[in-house]
Protein backbone atom coordinates (compact mmCIF):
# COMPACT_ATOMS: atom_id res chain seq x y z
CA UNK A 1 0.00 0.00 0.00
CA UNK A 2 1.42 3.37 -1.04
CA UNK A 3 1.50 5.81 1.85
CA UNK A 4 -0.94 8.70 1.52
CA UNK A 5 0.36 12.10 0.40
CA UNK A 6 -2.80 13.82 1.47
CA UNK A 7 -5.05 12.41 4.13
CA UNK A 8 -8.36 14.12 4.79
CA UNK A 9 -10.39 12.91 7.78
CA UNK A 10 -13.81 14.29 8.62
CA UNK A 11 -13.07 17.75 7.30
CA UNK A 12 -15.69 20.49 7.58
CA UNK A 13 -15.29 24.05 6.42
CA UNK A 14 -17.52 26.96 7.34
CA UNK A 15 -17.54 30.38 5.71
CA UNK A 16 -19.20 33.07 7.80
CA UNK A 17 -20.66 30.38 10.04
CA UNK A 18 -22.29 28.58 7.15
CA UNK A 19 -21.07 25.03 6.69
CA UNK A 20 -19.97 24.70 3.07
CA UNK A 21 -18.14 21.39 3.43
CA UNK A 22 -19.36 18.74 5.85
CA UNK A 23 -17.32 15.83 7.19
CA UNK A 24 -15.44 14.88 4.04
CA UNK A 25 -12.83 12.14 4.12
CA UNK A 26 -10.59 11.16 1.24
CA UNK A 27 -7.03 10.04 0.65
CA UNK A 28 -4.71 10.96 -2.21
CA UNK A 29 -1.76 8.65 -2.80
CA UNK A 30 1.48 8.97 -4.71
CA UNK A 31 1.05 7.85 -8.30
CA UNK A 32 -2.64 8.73 -8.34
CA UNK A 33 -4.86 11.38 -9.84
CA UNK A 34 -7.85 12.18 -7.65
CA UNK A 35 -10.67 14.01 -9.41
CA UNK A 36 -13.22 15.99 -7.42
CA UNK A 37 -16.51 16.39 -9.25
CA UNK A 38 -19.89 17.77 -8.30
CA UNK A 39 -22.41 20.39 -9.31
CA UNK A 40 -21.88 24.14 -8.78
CA UNK A 41 -22.07 25.06 -5.12
CA UNK A 42 -21.35 21.53 -3.92
CA UNK A 43 -18.28 22.71 -2.00
CA UNK A 44 -15.50 21.56 -4.34
CA UNK A 45 -13.53 24.81 -4.39
CA UNK A 46 -14.07 25.39 -0.67
CA UNK A 47 -12.71 21.91 0.02
CA UNK A 48 -9.75 22.69 -2.25
CA UNK A 49 -9.10 25.90 -0.33
CA UNK A 50 -9.02 23.96 2.90
CA UNK A 51 -6.62 21.43 1.36
CA UNK A 52 -4.31 24.24 0.24
CA UNK A 53 -4.37 25.84 3.69
CA UNK A 54 -6.16 28.94 2.52
CA UNK A 55 -9.28 28.32 4.62
CA UNK A 56 -9.41 27.05 8.16
CA UNK A 57 -10.95 23.64 8.66
CA UNK A 58 -12.31 21.36 11.32
CA UNK A 59 -11.18 17.76 11.25
CA UNK A 60 -7.77 16.57 10.10
CA UNK A 61 -5.78 17.23 6.97
CA UNK A 62 -2.32 15.72 6.83
CA UNK A 63 0.30 16.36 4.17
CA UNK A 64 2.89 13.60 4.04
CA UNK A 65 1.83 12.61 7.53
CA UNK A 66 2.16 16.11 9.04
CA UNK A 67 -0.92 18.06 10.14
CA UNK A 68 -1.50 20.90 7.68
CA UNK A 69 -2.29 23.32 10.50
CA UNK A 70 1.17 23.02 11.97
CA UNK A 71 3.11 23.30 8.70
CA UNK A 72 4.86 26.64 8.23
CA UNK A 73 4.00 28.20 4.82
CA UNK A 74 7.53 27.65 3.59
CA UNK A 75 7.49 23.93 4.39
CA UNK A 76 4.02 23.45 2.93
CA UNK A 77 5.26 25.14 -0.25
CA UNK A 78 7.98 22.51 -0.62
CA UNK A 79 5.36 19.76 -0.53
CA UNK A 80 2.52 21.05 -2.63
CA UNK A 81 1.69 23.57 -5.32
CA UNK A 82 -1.71 25.07 -6.00
CA UNK A 83 -3.11 26.21 -9.30
CA UNK A 84 -6.04 28.61 -8.80
CA UNK A 85 -8.98 28.91 -11.19
CA UNK A 86 -7.78 32.28 -12.44
CA UNK A 87 -5.03 34.71 -11.53
CA UNK A 88 -5.14 38.45 -12.07
CA UNK A 89 -1.72 40.05 -11.93
CA UNK A 90 -1.42 43.46 -10.33
CA UNK A 91 1.70 44.40 -12.30
CA UNK A 92 2.88 43.77 -15.86
CA UNK A 93 5.15 40.73 -15.63
CA UNK A 94 6.37 38.80 -18.64
CA UNK A 95 5.41 35.14 -18.99
CA UNK A 96 8.92 34.09 -17.99
CA UNK A 97 8.81 36.24 -14.87
CA UNK A 98 5.47 34.74 -13.79
CA UNK A 99 6.73 31.20 -14.28
CA UNK A 100 9.90 32.00 -12.33
CA UNK A 101 7.77 33.03 -9.37
CA UNK A 102 7.14 29.29 -9.00
CA UNK A 103 10.87 28.81 -8.55
CA UNK A 104 11.02 31.64 -6.04
CA UNK A 105 9.72 29.19 -3.49
CA UNK A 106 13.41 28.27 -3.72
CA UNK A 107 12.99 24.55 -3.44
CA UNK A 108 16.28 23.08 -4.37
CA UNK A 109 16.50 24.04 -8.04
CA UNK A 110 20.18 24.83 -8.58
CA UNK A 111 20.60 28.37 -10.02
CA UNK A 112 22.29 27.04 -13.14
CA UNK A 113 19.27 24.88 -13.94
CA UNK A 114 16.56 27.46 -13.27
CA UNK A 115 16.31 28.81 -16.78
CA UNK A 116 16.13 25.27 -18.15
CA UNK A 117 13.38 24.31 -15.69
CA UNK A 118 11.36 27.39 -16.68
CA UNK A 119 11.82 26.67 -20.38
CA UNK A 120 10.87 23.02 -19.90
CA UNK A 121 7.72 23.97 -17.99
CA UNK A 122 6.68 26.38 -20.75
CA UNK A 123 7.30 23.73 -23.39
CA UNK A 124 5.32 21.24 -21.37
CA UNK A 125 2.23 23.48 -21.41
CA UNK A 126 2.67 24.24 -25.13
CA UNK A 127 3.81 27.84 -24.64
CA UNK A 128 7.37 27.45 -25.89
CA UNK A 129 7.64 30.78 -27.72
CA UNK A 130 5.79 32.79 -25.12
CA UNK A 131 8.42 33.60 -22.52
CA UNK A 132 8.87 37.22 -23.66
CA UNK A 133 5.15 38.00 -23.93
CA UNK A 134 3.39 40.16 -21.35
CA UNK A 135 1.10 38.00 -19.18
CA UNK A 136 -1.75 40.50 -19.43
CA UNK A 137 -1.76 40.32 -23.22
CA UNK A 138 -2.53 36.57 -23.23
CA UNK A 139 -5.92 34.93 -23.60
CA UNK A 140 -7.60 33.34 -20.60
CA UNK A 141 -6.60 29.85 -21.69
CA UNK A 142 -2.99 30.88 -22.26
CA UNK A 143 -2.86 32.57 -18.85
CA UNK A 144 -4.19 29.39 -17.28
CA UNK A 145 -1.40 27.40 -18.90
CA UNK A 146 1.20 29.95 -17.74
CA UNK A 147 -0.08 29.39 -14.21
CA UNK A 148 0.24 25.64 -14.70
CA UNK A 149 3.84 26.15 -15.85
CA UNK A 150 4.47 28.23 -12.72
CA UNK A 151 3.00 25.51 -10.52
CA UNK A 152 5.06 22.84 -12.30
CA UNK A 153 8.19 24.87 -11.52
CA UNK A 154 7.28 24.92 -7.86
CA UNK A 155 7.05 21.12 -7.76
CA UNK A 156 9.51 20.52 -10.56
CA UNK A 157 10.38 17.08 -9.20
CA UNK A 158 7.26 15.04 -8.36
CA UNK A 159 9.14 13.65 -5.37
CA UNK A 160 11.47 15.78 -3.29
CA UNK A 161 13.83 14.54 -0.59
CA UNK A 162 12.06 11.21 -0.60
CA UNK A 163 8.60 12.71 -0.15
CA UNK A 164 6.02 12.73 -2.92
CA UNK A 165 4.72 16.16 -3.84
CA UNK A 166 1.13 17.17 -4.33
CA UNK A 167 -0.44 19.19 -7.12
CA UNK A 168 -3.76 20.84 -6.31
CA UNK A 169 -5.54 21.97 -9.46
CA UNK A 170 -8.73 24.00 -9.21
CA UNK A 171 -10.58 23.55 -12.50
CA UNK A 172 -7.35 23.40 -14.47
CA UNK A 173 -9.09 22.95 -17.83
CA UNK A 174 -11.94 25.44 -17.40
CA UNK A 175 -10.70 27.95 -20.00
CA UNK A 176 -8.96 25.53 -22.32
CA UNK A 177 -9.74 24.23 -25.78
CA UNK A 178 -10.07 20.46 -26.20
CA UNK A 179 -6.45 19.93 -27.28
CA UNK A 180 -5.10 21.70 -24.24
CA UNK A 181 -7.63 20.08 -21.91
CA UNK A 182 -6.17 16.74 -22.94
CA UNK A 183 -2.64 18.13 -22.63
CA UNK A 184 -3.26 19.28 -19.06
CA UNK A 185 -4.77 15.92 -18.12
CA UNK A 186 -1.71 14.19 -19.63
CA UNK A 187 0.53 16.47 -17.55
CA UNK A 188 -1.43 15.48 -14.44
CA UNK A 189 -1.07 11.79 -15.33
CA UNK A 190 2.64 12.28 -16.02
CA UNK A 191 3.14 13.96 -12.64
CA UNK A 192 1.42 11.06 -10.90
CA UNK A 193 3.33 8.49 -12.94
CA UNK A 194 6.60 10.14 -11.82
CA UNK A 195 5.68 9.61 -8.18
CA UNK A 196 3.63 12.67 -7.28
CA UNK A 197 -0.04 12.97 -6.38
CA UNK A 198 -2.63 15.13 -8.10
CA UNK A 199 -5.97 16.42 -6.85
CA UNK A 200 -8.02 18.19 -9.52
CA UNK A 201 -11.48 19.69 -9.58
CA UNK A 202 -13.08 18.78 -12.88
CA UNK A 203 -16.40 19.52 -14.47
CA UNK A 204 -16.02 17.14 -17.36
CA UNK A 205 -17.19 13.72 -16.18
CA UNK A 206 -15.55 12.06 -19.14
CA UNK A 207 -12.13 13.55 -18.38
CA UNK A 208 -12.58 12.28 -14.82
CA UNK A 209 -13.56 8.85 -16.12
CA UNK A 210 -10.60 8.69 -18.50
CA UNK A 211 -7.79 10.20 -16.43
CA UNK A 212 -8.57 9.76 -12.73
CA UNK A 213 -7.63 6.82 -10.54
CA UNK A 214 -10.09 7.93 -7.93
CA UNK A 215 -13.16 10.14 -8.10
CA UNK A 216 -14.67 12.06 -5.19
CA UNK A 217 -18.23 13.07 -5.90
CA UNK A 218 -19.39 16.05 -3.87
CA UNK A 219 -23.02 16.92 -3.33
CA UNK A 220 -24.30 19.68 -1.07
CA UNK A 221 -21.01 19.87 0.79
CA UNK A 222 -20.85 16.16 1.50
CA UNK A 223 -19.05 13.23 0.02
CA UNK A 224 -21.68 11.50 -2.15
CA UNK A 225 -19.32 8.79 -3.33
CA UNK A 226 -15.65 8.05 -3.63
CA UNK A 227 -13.71 5.36 -5.45
CA UNK A 228 -12.47 4.16 -8.81
CA UNK A 229 -14.24 5.87 -11.74
CA UNK A 230 -15.76 2.62 -13.00
CA UNK A 231 -17.49 2.07 -9.65
CA UNK A 232 -18.36 5.63 -8.75
CA UNK A 233 -19.43 7.14 -12.04
CA UNK A 234 -22.66 5.24 -12.07
CA UNK A 235 -25.41 6.67 -14.23
CA UNK A 236 -28.01 6.64 -11.47
CA UNK A 237 -25.71 8.44 -8.99
CA UNK A 238 -24.61 11.01 -11.56
CA UNK A 239 -28.21 11.74 -12.57
CA UNK A 240 -29.19 12.21 -8.99
CA UNK A 241 -26.23 14.35 -7.97
CA UNK A 242 -26.29 16.60 -11.01
CA UNK A 243 -30.07 16.52 -11.43
CA UNK A 244 -30.07 16.16 -15.18
CA UNK A 245 -30.84 13.57 -17.81
CA UNK A 246 -27.76 11.74 -18.98
CA UNK A 247 -27.06 8.59 -20.82
CA UNK A 248 -23.93 6.44 -21.13
CA UNK A 249 -22.12 5.43 -24.26
CA UNK A 250 -20.00 2.30 -24.09
CA UNK A 251 -16.54 2.37 -25.65
CA UNK A 252 -15.29 -0.89 -27.21
CA UNK A 253 -12.86 -1.30 -24.29
CA UNK A 254 -15.68 -1.20 -21.80
CA UNK A 255 -15.23 2.36 -20.51
CA UNK A 256 -18.51 4.25 -20.34
CA UNK A 257 -18.71 7.90 -21.22
CA UNK A 258 -21.52 10.27 -20.42
CA UNK A 259 -23.60 12.16 -22.93
CA UNK A 260 -26.73 14.26 -22.58
CA UNK A 261 -29.81 12.04 -22.75
CA UNK A 262 -30.92 14.11 -25.71
CA UNK A 263 -28.13 12.43 -27.73
CA UNK A 264 -29.96 9.11 -27.86
CA UNK A 265 -33.25 10.81 -28.67
CA UNK A 266 -31.62 12.63 -31.58
CA UNK A 267 -30.09 9.38 -32.76
CA UNK A 268 -33.50 7.67 -32.63
CA UNK A 269 -35.22 10.35 -34.67
Amino acid sequence: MVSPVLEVRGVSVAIERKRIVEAVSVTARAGEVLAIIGPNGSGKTTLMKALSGELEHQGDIALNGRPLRTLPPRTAATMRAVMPQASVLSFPFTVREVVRLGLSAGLGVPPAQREAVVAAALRRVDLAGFSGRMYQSLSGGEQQRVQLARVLCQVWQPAFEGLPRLLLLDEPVSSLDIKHQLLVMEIARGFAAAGGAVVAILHDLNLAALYADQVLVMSEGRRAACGAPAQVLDIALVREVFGCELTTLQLPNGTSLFAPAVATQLAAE
Partner: protein
Amino acid sequence: MTAELAGPVAGDRTRLAQLTLAGLVLLLVAAAALALLTGASDASLPRLLSAWMAGATDDPLVLRDQLVFLDIRLPRLLLGMLIGAGLAVSGVVMQGLFRNPLADPGLVGVSSGASLGAVVMIVLGGTALAPLTAILGIYSLQISAFVTGLVTTLILYQVATRGTQTQIATMLLAGIAIAALATAVMGVMVFLASDSQLRDFTFWSMGSLAGSNWQKVQASGPIILIAVFCCMLLTRGLNALTLGEATAMHLGIPVQRLKRIAIVAVAAATGAAVAVSGGIGFIGIIVPHLLRLVIGPDHKYLLPASALLGAAFLLVADAVARTIVAPAELPIGIVTAAVGGPFFLWILLRRRELAW
Protein backbone atom coordinates in the same frame (compact mmCIF):
# COMPACT_ATOMS: atom_id res chain seq x y z
CA MET B 1 14.24 47.43 -28.36
CA THR B 2 13.53 45.83 -25.04
CA ALA B 3 14.05 42.39 -26.53
CA GLU B 4 17.56 43.27 -27.77
CA LEU B 5 18.63 44.64 -24.43
CA ALA B 6 16.96 41.94 -22.40
CA GLY B 7 19.66 39.29 -22.65
CA PRO B 8 19.62 35.79 -24.06
CA VAL B 9 16.21 34.63 -22.82
CA ALA B 10 13.07 36.36 -24.05
CA GLY B 11 11.20 37.96 -21.20
CA ASP B 12 14.33 38.20 -19.05
CA ARG B 13 14.84 41.82 -18.06
CA THR B 14 17.68 41.11 -15.64
CA ARG B 15 20.42 42.65 -17.80
CA LEU B 16 18.31 45.69 -18.49
CA ALA B 17 17.62 46.08 -14.78
CA GLN B 18 21.31 45.79 -13.91
CA LEU B 19 22.25 48.38 -16.52
CA THR B 20 19.51 50.67 -15.21
CA LEU B 21 20.80 50.29 -11.66
CA ALA B 22 24.31 51.20 -12.77
CA GLY B 23 22.94 54.20 -14.65
CA LEU B 24 20.96 55.30 -11.62
CA VAL B 25 24.05 55.20 -9.41
CA LEU B 26 25.74 57.59 -11.85
CA LEU B 27 22.64 59.76 -11.94
CA LEU B 28 22.59 59.94 -8.16
CA VAL B 29 26.26 60.92 -8.05
CA ALA B 30 25.58 63.66 -10.60
CA ALA B 31 22.52 64.86 -8.68
CA ALA B 32 24.50 64.91 -5.46
CA ALA B 33 27.23 66.98 -7.13
CA LEU B 34 24.58 69.34 -8.46
CA ALA B 35 23.01 69.65 -5.01
CA LEU B 36 26.35 70.31 -3.37
CA LEU B 37 27.55 72.85 -5.91
CA THR B 38 24.43 74.92 -6.50
CA GLY B 39 22.79 77.30 -4.10
CA ALA B 40 22.03 80.90 -3.31
CA SER B 41 25.46 81.53 -1.83
CA ASP B 42 28.58 81.95 -3.95
CA ALA B 43 30.50 79.49 -1.80
CA SER B 44 33.10 77.62 -3.83
CA LEU B 45 34.12 74.05 -3.20
CA PRO B 46 37.51 74.34 -5.01
CA ARG B 47 38.35 77.36 -2.85
CA LEU B 48 37.43 75.48 0.29
CA LEU B 49 39.40 72.39 -0.75
CA SER B 50 42.52 74.35 -1.65
CA ALA B 51 42.29 76.23 1.63
CA TRP B 52 42.05 72.92 3.48
CA MET B 53 45.06 71.60 1.58
CA ALA B 54 47.04 74.68 2.51
CA GLY B 55 45.87 74.43 6.09
CA ALA B 56 44.53 77.98 5.97
CA THR B 57 41.26 77.46 7.78
CA ASP B 58 41.04 80.69 9.75
CA ASP B 59 40.24 82.90 6.74
CA PRO B 60 36.66 84.21 7.29
CA LEU B 61 35.78 83.41 3.67
CA VAL B 62 36.91 79.84 4.12
CA LEU B 63 35.06 79.60 7.40
CA ARG B 64 31.92 80.78 5.65
CA ASP B 65 32.44 78.29 2.81
CA GLN B 66 32.98 75.59 5.38
CA LEU B 67 29.73 76.53 7.06
CA VAL B 68 27.83 76.52 3.76
CA PHE B 69 29.13 73.12 2.66
CA LEU B 70 29.45 71.19 5.88
CA ASP B 71 26.58 72.54 7.93
CA ILE B 72 24.03 73.59 5.34
CA ARG B 73 24.42 71.78 2.03
CA LEU B 74 25.80 68.43 3.24
CA PRO B 75 23.04 67.69 5.78
CA ARG B 76 20.50 68.89 3.25
CA LEU B 77 22.02 66.61 0.63
CA LEU B 78 21.87 63.63 2.96
CA LEU B 79 18.32 64.36 4.06
CA GLY B 80 17.24 64.84 0.45
CA MET B 81 18.68 61.49 -0.54
CA LEU B 82 17.25 59.67 2.45
CA ILE B 83 13.80 61.20 2.12
CA GLY B 84 13.68 60.70 -1.65
CA ALA B 85 14.70 57.07 -1.26
CA GLY B 86 12.35 56.52 1.68
CA LEU B 87 9.32 57.97 -0.08
CA ALA B 88 9.98 56.13 -3.35
CA VAL B 89 10.51 52.80 -1.59
CA SER B 90 7.40 53.39 0.53
CA GLY B 91 5.48 53.90 -2.71
CA VAL B 92 6.75 50.60 -4.13
CA VAL B 93 5.89 48.69 -0.97
CA MET B 94 2.40 50.21 -0.65
CA GLN B 95 1.70 49.47 -4.29
CA GLY B 96 2.87 45.90 -3.83
CA LEU B 97 0.88 45.50 -0.65
CA PHE B 98 -2.33 47.00 -2.01
CA ARG B 99 -1.65 45.30 -5.36
CA ASN B 100 -2.31 48.58 -7.09
CA PRO B 101 0.08 50.89 -8.94
CA LEU B 102 -1.80 53.98 -7.72
CA ALA B 103 -1.23 53.43 -4.01
CA ASP B 104 1.10 56.07 -2.63
CA PRO B 105 1.65 57.28 0.92
CA GLY B 106 0.78 60.82 -0.16
CA LEU B 107 -2.33 60.01 -2.15
CA VAL B 108 -3.97 57.64 0.27
CA GLY B 109 -3.54 59.77 3.35
CA VAL B 110 -0.57 58.17 5.13
CA SER B 111 1.42 61.38 4.75
CA SER B 112 -1.54 63.41 6.04
CA GLY B 113 -1.78 61.11 9.03
CA ALA B 114 1.94 61.44 9.68
CA SER B 115 1.75 65.24 9.24
CA LEU B 116 -0.96 65.34 11.86
CA GLY B 117 1.29 63.71 14.43
CA ALA B 118 4.12 66.05 13.55
CA VAL B 119 1.96 69.18 13.71
CA VAL B 120 0.48 68.21 17.04
CA MET B 121 4.01 67.72 18.32
CA ILE B 122 5.21 71.07 16.89
CA VAL B 123 2.39 73.01 18.51
CA LEU B 124 1.87 71.12 21.75
CA GLY B 125 5.34 69.66 22.20
CA GLY B 126 6.40 72.53 24.45
CA THR B 127 3.21 72.61 26.50
CA ALA B 128 0.63 69.86 26.81
CA LEU B 129 2.92 67.14 25.44
CA ALA B 130 6.06 68.39 27.17
CA PRO B 131 6.53 65.23 29.28
CA LEU B 132 6.45 63.14 26.08
CA THR B 133 8.95 65.44 24.38
CA ALA B 134 11.22 65.06 27.37
CA ILE B 135 11.22 61.27 26.98
CA LEU B 136 11.52 61.10 23.20
CA GLY B 137 14.11 63.87 22.86
CA ILE B 138 15.18 64.68 19.30
CA TYR B 139 13.05 61.82 18.01
CA SER B 140 9.75 63.19 19.31
CA LEU B 141 8.64 64.66 15.96
CA GLN B 142 9.67 61.51 14.07
CA ILE B 143 8.00 59.16 16.50
CA SER B 144 4.73 61.05 16.70
CA ALA B 145 4.62 61.23 12.88
CA PHE B 146 5.38 57.51 12.72
CA VAL B 147 2.64 56.61 15.18
CA THR B 148 -0.09 58.62 13.47
CA GLY B 149 1.17 57.44 10.06
CA LEU B 150 0.97 53.84 11.26
CA VAL B 151 -2.54 54.26 12.64
CA THR B 152 -3.61 55.83 9.34
CA THR B 153 -2.14 52.97 7.31
CA LEU B 154 -3.87 50.38 9.48
CA ILE B 155 -7.23 52.16 9.21
CA LEU B 156 -6.77 52.45 5.48
CA TYR B 157 -5.94 48.78 5.11
CA GLN B 158 -8.95 47.73 7.18
CA VAL B 159 -11.33 49.99 5.27
CA ALA B 160 -10.07 49.31 1.76
CA THR B 161 -9.45 45.57 1.96
CA ARG B 162 -12.34 43.16 1.81
CA GLY B 163 -11.27 39.54 1.87
CA THR B 164 -8.16 39.54 -0.25
CA GLN B 165 -9.27 42.30 -2.59
CA THR B 166 -8.26 45.91 -2.13
CA GLN B 167 -10.79 48.30 -3.56
CA ILE B 168 -8.86 51.14 -5.13
CA ALA B 169 -11.87 53.47 -5.13
CA THR B 170 -12.54 52.79 -1.44
CA MET B 171 -8.87 53.29 -0.71
CA LEU B 172 -8.68 56.66 -2.45
CA LEU B 173 -11.93 57.82 -0.85
CA ALA B 174 -10.70 56.67 2.54
CA GLY B 175 -7.54 58.66 1.83
CA ILE B 176 -9.64 61.76 1.17
CA ALA B 177 -11.60 61.23 4.38
CA ILE B 178 -8.43 60.73 6.41
CA ALA B 179 -6.80 63.78 4.83
CA ALA B 180 -9.91 65.86 5.60
CA LEU B 181 -9.91 64.71 9.19
CA ALA B 182 -6.20 65.41 9.54
CA THR B 183 -6.69 68.86 8.00
CA ALA B 184 -9.44 69.60 10.49
CA VAL B 185 -7.28 68.68 13.46
CA MET B 186 -4.36 70.60 11.96
CA GLY B 187 -6.71 73.58 11.63
CA VAL B 188 -7.25 73.44 15.37
CA MET B 189 -3.48 73.28 15.87
CA VAL B 190 -2.98 76.31 13.61
CA PHE B 191 -5.54 78.11 15.71
CA LEU B 192 -3.52 77.30 18.81
CA ALA B 193 -0.14 78.02 17.27
CA SER B 194 2.03 81.03 17.96
CA ASP B 195 3.11 83.32 15.11
CA SER B 196 6.52 81.75 14.68
CA GLN B 197 5.08 78.23 14.84
CA LEU B 198 2.57 79.30 12.23
CA ARG B 199 5.24 80.48 9.79
CA ASP B 200 7.23 77.25 10.25
CA PHE B 201 4.12 75.24 9.88
CA THR B 202 2.94 76.90 6.66
CA PHE B 203 6.27 76.42 4.98
CA TRP B 204 6.60 72.91 6.29
CA SER B 205 3.11 71.88 5.18
CA MET B 206 4.03 72.63 1.57
CA GLY B 207 7.10 70.44 1.95
CA SER B 208 10.61 71.74 2.27
CA LEU B 209 14.13 70.70 3.02
CA ALA B 210 14.99 74.19 4.23
CA GLY B 211 16.27 74.12 7.78
CA SER B 212 18.07 70.82 7.27
CA ASN B 213 20.76 70.32 9.86
CA TRP B 214 22.78 67.53 11.38
CA GLN B 215 20.33 67.05 14.20
CA LYS B 216 17.55 66.29 11.71
CA VAL B 217 19.82 63.90 9.85
CA GLN B 218 20.55 62.20 13.13
CA ALA B 219 16.87 62.01 14.09
CA SER B 220 15.33 60.85 10.79
CA GLY B 221 18.27 59.24 9.00
CA PRO B 222 18.56 56.00 10.96
CA ILE B 223 14.78 55.47 10.94
CA ILE B 224 14.54 55.87 7.17
CA LEU B 225 17.63 53.73 6.59
CA ILE B 226 16.31 50.89 8.73
CA ALA B 227 12.84 51.10 7.14
CA VAL B 228 14.29 51.06 3.60
CA PHE B 229 16.54 48.15 4.53
CA CYS B 230 13.53 46.20 5.88
CA CYS B 231 11.64 46.90 2.65
CA MET B 232 14.54 45.48 0.63
CA LEU B 233 14.04 42.18 2.49
CA LEU B 234 10.45 41.93 1.25
CA THR B 235 11.44 41.31 -2.38
CA ARG B 236 10.28 37.71 -2.65
CA GLY B 237 7.06 38.31 -0.75
CA LEU B 238 6.09 41.38 -2.74
CA ASN B 239 6.76 39.55 -5.99
CA ALA B 240 4.59 36.63 -4.90
CA LEU B 241 1.88 39.02 -3.74
CA THR B 242 1.52 40.19 -7.34
CA LEU B 243 -0.38 36.93 -7.90
CA GLY B 244 -2.69 37.57 -4.96
CA GLU B 245 -2.54 36.76 -1.26
CA ALA B 246 -3.69 33.17 -1.62
CA THR B 247 -1.08 32.34 -4.25
CA ALA B 248 1.62 34.12 -2.25
CA MET B 249 0.72 31.86 0.66
CA HIS B 250 0.86 28.81 -1.63
CA LEU B 251 4.34 29.90 -2.67
CA GLY B 252 5.42 29.72 0.96
CA ILE B 253 5.18 33.39 1.91
CA PRO B 254 4.02 34.11 5.50
CA VAL B 255 1.59 36.71 4.18
CA GLN B 256 0.38 38.15 7.48
CA ARG B 257 3.92 38.74 8.69
CA LEU B 258 4.85 40.29 5.35
CA LYS B 259 1.92 42.71 5.59
CA ARG B 260 2.79 43.70 9.15
CA ILE B 261 6.43 44.40 8.31
CA ALA B 262 5.45 46.32 5.17
CA ILE B 263 2.92 48.52 6.96
CA VAL B 264 5.27 49.35 9.83
CA ALA B 265 8.19 50.05 7.47
CA VAL B 266 6.10 52.34 5.26
CA ALA B 267 4.74 54.23 8.25
CA ALA B 268 8.25 54.58 9.70
CA ALA B 269 9.84 55.82 6.48
CA THR B 270 6.95 58.17 5.68
CA GLY B 271 6.72 59.41 9.27
CA ALA B 272 10.44 60.11 9.54
CA ALA B 273 10.42 61.85 6.14
CA VAL B 274 7.35 63.94 6.90
CA ALA B 275 8.74 64.92 10.29
CA VAL B 276 11.69 66.75 8.72
CA SER B 277 10.43 67.78 5.32
CA GLY B 278 6.64 68.03 5.53
CA GLY B 279 4.39 66.90 2.73
CA ILE B 280 6.52 66.12 -0.31
CA GLY B 281 4.13 64.37 -2.64
CA PHE B 282 4.15 62.16 -5.71
CA ILE B 283 7.67 60.73 -5.43
CA GLY B 284 6.23 57.42 -4.30
CA ILE B 285 4.11 57.22 -7.41
CA ILE B 286 6.25 58.78 -10.16
CA VAL B 287 9.47 56.94 -9.44
CA PRO B 288 8.19 53.35 -9.20
CA HIS B 289 5.87 53.84 -12.15
CA LEU B 290 8.63 55.09 -14.46
CA LEU B 291 10.93 52.29 -13.38
CA ARG B 292 8.29 49.61 -13.93
CA LEU B 293 7.96 50.83 -17.50
CA VAL B 294 11.69 50.33 -18.02
CA ILE B 295 12.77 47.32 -15.94
CA GLY B 296 9.44 45.67 -15.12
CA PRO B 297 7.86 45.01 -11.75
CA ASP B 298 10.39 42.55 -10.26
CA HIS B 299 10.94 43.95 -6.76
CA LYS B 300 14.47 42.60 -6.63
CA TYR B 301 15.46 45.45 -8.93
CA LEU B 302 12.50 47.78 -8.51
CA LEU B 303 13.20 48.43 -4.82
CA PRO B 304 16.88 49.45 -5.10
CA ALA B 305 16.26 51.28 -8.37
CA SER B 306 13.42 53.25 -6.76
CA ALA B 307 15.62 54.15 -3.81
CA LEU B 308 18.31 55.49 -6.17
CA LEU B 309 15.95 57.34 -8.51
CA GLY B 310 13.88 58.70 -5.61
CA ALA B 311 17.02 60.09 -4.00
CA ALA B 312 18.25 61.63 -7.27
CA PHE B 313 14.82 63.01 -8.12
CA LEU B 314 14.45 64.76 -4.79
CA LEU B 315 17.95 66.24 -4.98
CA VAL B 316 17.22 67.70 -8.43
CA ALA B 317 13.79 68.96 -7.32
CA ASP B 318 15.46 70.55 -4.29
CA ALA B 319 18.14 72.17 -6.45
CA VAL B 320 15.35 73.64 -8.58
CA ALA B 321 13.43 74.78 -5.50
CA ARG B 322 16.53 76.46 -4.07
CA THR B 323 17.63 78.27 -7.19
CA ILE B 324 14.60 79.05 -9.33
CA VAL B 325 13.56 82.09 -7.25
CA ALA B 326 16.93 82.67 -5.52
CA PRO B 327 17.73 84.15 -3.11
CA ALA B 328 14.27 83.15 -1.92
CA GLU B 329 13.33 79.48 -1.92
CA LEU B 330 10.30 77.61 -3.22
CA PRO B 331 8.86 74.84 -1.04
CA ILE B 332 10.00 71.61 -2.69
CA GLY B 333 6.51 70.14 -2.36
CA ILE B 334 5.40 72.66 -4.97
CA VAL B 335 8.07 71.43 -7.39
CA THR B 336 7.20 67.74 -6.93
CA ALA B 337 3.48 68.48 -7.20
CA ALA B 338 4.00 70.51 -10.37
CA VAL B 339 5.68 67.48 -11.93
CA GLY B 340 3.62 64.82 -10.16
CA GLY B 341 0.10 66.15 -10.79
CA PRO B 342 0.30 65.98 -14.60
CA PHE B 343 2.20 62.71 -14.35
CA PHE B 344 -0.56 61.17 -12.28
CA LEU B 345 -3.18 62.24 -14.83
CA TRP B 346 -1.04 60.68 -17.54
CA ILE B 347 -0.96 57.37 -15.61
CA LEU B 348 -4.75 57.46 -15.30
CA LEU B 349 -5.15 58.00 -19.05
CA ARG B 350 -2.72 55.22 -19.86
CA ARG B 351 -4.40 52.82 -17.47
CA ARG B 352 -7.70 53.49 -19.14
CA GLU B 353 -6.18 52.33 -22.41
CA LEU B 354 -4.23 49.37 -21.06
CA ALA B 355 -6.86 48.26 -18.55
CA TRP B 356 -4.54 47.47 -15.69
